[in-house]
């Protein structure tokens, strides 16, 4: 959307997540002429969720291309261009639309390197908007990172804030593998969505990478490990602060990358706290929350002093109507209740 956005003040260099992402893309486009951007409404519009704002003006239509609504063709195009040495950044406007192009994604983009015995590289960044909370209904509100993480051959990164958004974008562009880059609409700092204070933050000017595969402990605590990602990091941090007043100290892990997954950070936190809550805006079953349980259970189930808990979307399509949607989203209320339950 294009409801006017304020310019970031150069003095403080606080950027929204979307501007940080765009800055990362722009710096790589400056550095490497083989980087280009394509997708629906990435040109004049600047990306429906401002993931490409200003790039057309800066780099011109030969490097920033609006496409027809032909996800199979243009995502496949990105794959083919990557096999010939280019470094495309291709946007799938909403992750919910993956089904029209999934064959290109998981049977081609993700597998060609392997099938070629390592002879062909496929450095594509597939960036896509995820998440709900603004009543966009069952076909425009999903996270689906579990679906991508389950299928081999793609790295999957999910930033939660401006600094990681820029650093993971740069790391993704430089990576020689396909990287699925999933950004939550609610953390972009868009002026037309419910504001999130942490969606605006100081961001280094220079190009830098946030390493793919490393989680961040964004809050230390000895009582409960909350492993989470994306928008839910913020809800979890808010609840952690709130419960701190009650004497409950949560350790909050921002997973940042699902593939490869930073098992060590998760395990050492659980070893300390003995309590694990996964907060996940994706569907509950057969996904991220299960994988984290498995990691603990296959290391040592006795690490868990109390049963594992998860706050996720309870295997129901995302409802349109607000009371229903907020009943299935991983809200602060649900997170707080789960932490309290873990503490007995």
């Amino acid at each position: 959307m294009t409801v006017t956005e304020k310019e970031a003040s150069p003095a403080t260099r606080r950027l929204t997540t979307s501007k940080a992402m765009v800055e990362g893309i722009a710096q790589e486009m400056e550095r490497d002429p083989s980087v280009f951007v394509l997708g629906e409404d990435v040109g004049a519009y600047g990306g429906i969720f401002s993931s490409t704002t200003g790039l057309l003006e800066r780099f011109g239509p030969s490097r920033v291309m609006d496409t027809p609504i032909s996800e199979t063709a243009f995502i496949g195009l990105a794959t083919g261009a990557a096999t010939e040495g280019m470094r495309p950044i291709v946007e799938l406007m909403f992750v919910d639309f993956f089904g029209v192009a999934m064959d290109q994604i998981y049977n081609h983009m993700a597998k060609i390197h392997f099938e070629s015995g390592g002879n062909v590289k496929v450095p594509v960044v597939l960036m896509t908007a995820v998440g709900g909370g603004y009543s966009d209904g069952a076909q425009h509100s999903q996270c689906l990172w579990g679906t991508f993480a389950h299928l081999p051959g793609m790295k999957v990164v999910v930033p939660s804030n401006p600094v990681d958004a820029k650093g993971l974008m740069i790391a993704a562009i430089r990576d020689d593998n396909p990287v699925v880059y999933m950004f939550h609409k609610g953390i972009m700092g868009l002026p037309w969505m419910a504001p999130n204070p942490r969606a605006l933050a100081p961001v280094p000017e220079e190009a830098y990478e946030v390493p793919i595969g490393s989680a961040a402990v964004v809050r230390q605590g000895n009582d409960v490990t909350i492993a989470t990602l994306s928008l839910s990091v913020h809800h979890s941090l808010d609840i952690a602060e709130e419960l701190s007043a009650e004497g409950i100290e949560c350790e909050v892990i921002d997973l940042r990358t699902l593939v490869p997954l930073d098992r060590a950070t998760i395990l050492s936190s659980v070893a300390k706290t003995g309590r694990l809550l996964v907060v996940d805006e994706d569907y509950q079953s057969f996904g991220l929350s299960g994988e984290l349980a498995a990691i603990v259970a296959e290391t040592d189930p006795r690490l868990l002093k109390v049963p594992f808990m998860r706050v996720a979307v309870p295997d129901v399509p995302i409802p349109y109507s607000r009371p229903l949607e907020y009943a299935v989203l991983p809200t602060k209320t649900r997170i707080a209740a789960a932490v309290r339950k873990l503490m007995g």
Partner: protein
Amino acid sequence: MDQKIKIELYRTMVLIRSFEEAILRDYHADKKPAWDIGAGLIPGEMHLSAGQEPVAAGICANLSPGDGITATHRPHHLAIAHGVSLKALAAEIFGRETGLGKGRGGHMHLFDPASHFSCSGIIAEGYPPALGQAFAFKWKKTPNVIVAVTGEGAANQGAFHESLNLAALWKLPVVFVVEDNDWAISVPRHASTAIASNAERAAAYGIPGERIEDNNVEAIWRSAKTAIDRARSGEGPSLLEIHTVRLWGHFEGDAQAYRDDLDAARAHDPLPAYEAQLISEGFLDSAQAEAIKEESAAEVEAALSFAKASPLPDAADALRYVFA
């Protein structure tokens, strides 16, 4: 064309516009001062159809009970022209338990089994289920048809191609309609489609194809009649591309900075044009036009009042309806 039909077409167009204007008003009413897409009585994306009324009116006037229609993310005009309950439609948009989908669907997911109305928010993906409805009609040996609608942007999606081929091959009673409003969000048609008229794509399936210019409701009515009659008589599908106009943003909140045709578009508002035509043809006078507008407005306000007075779904029911 006889007067009755002309007035009916006009009335339908007015009703649609009244509805869209009322939704526009209520959608923005409580999102200020900091405009938040998720806030207010009507949250979420909102794709309104102002300008595209002639398509809906012209097509649906040719449909009979038992016929169906499949729409897109921009579905209101078609739902209204097809006779979907205004109250249940409005209630769904307001996310109420009395809505078409009990508030579960929202404005891009409207299902009215009674009138075989449905829609989908995924581009061109409404076509394939429409084939199945047509298939079922054939199997039940009812002489019914399905009209499947997409935008011109959708004509470049794989589902478009597969659906036309299969429908042509199996001679299914479907009429495929492409609403060409020149834009797919910010992408103009010439930047997305390799040819000037999708009607030419009909040849790729051996079916009739026609492009209707000028957003002319009577021309649409006539062409739709031919195509629908053809489908009904078992001769298979047709493809109609209708050049229409998107008067407002792609969705509400769209500042349309990319758009250079806004003045021209506004000058082509089909409603005053058709009203003027009917008046000049002597089929309508200003008083009658006023009366129709007032009736429509009243009907719309009644529907919106019903919606707003209806209960929101109970959060305790959030897990219902996943499985039958």
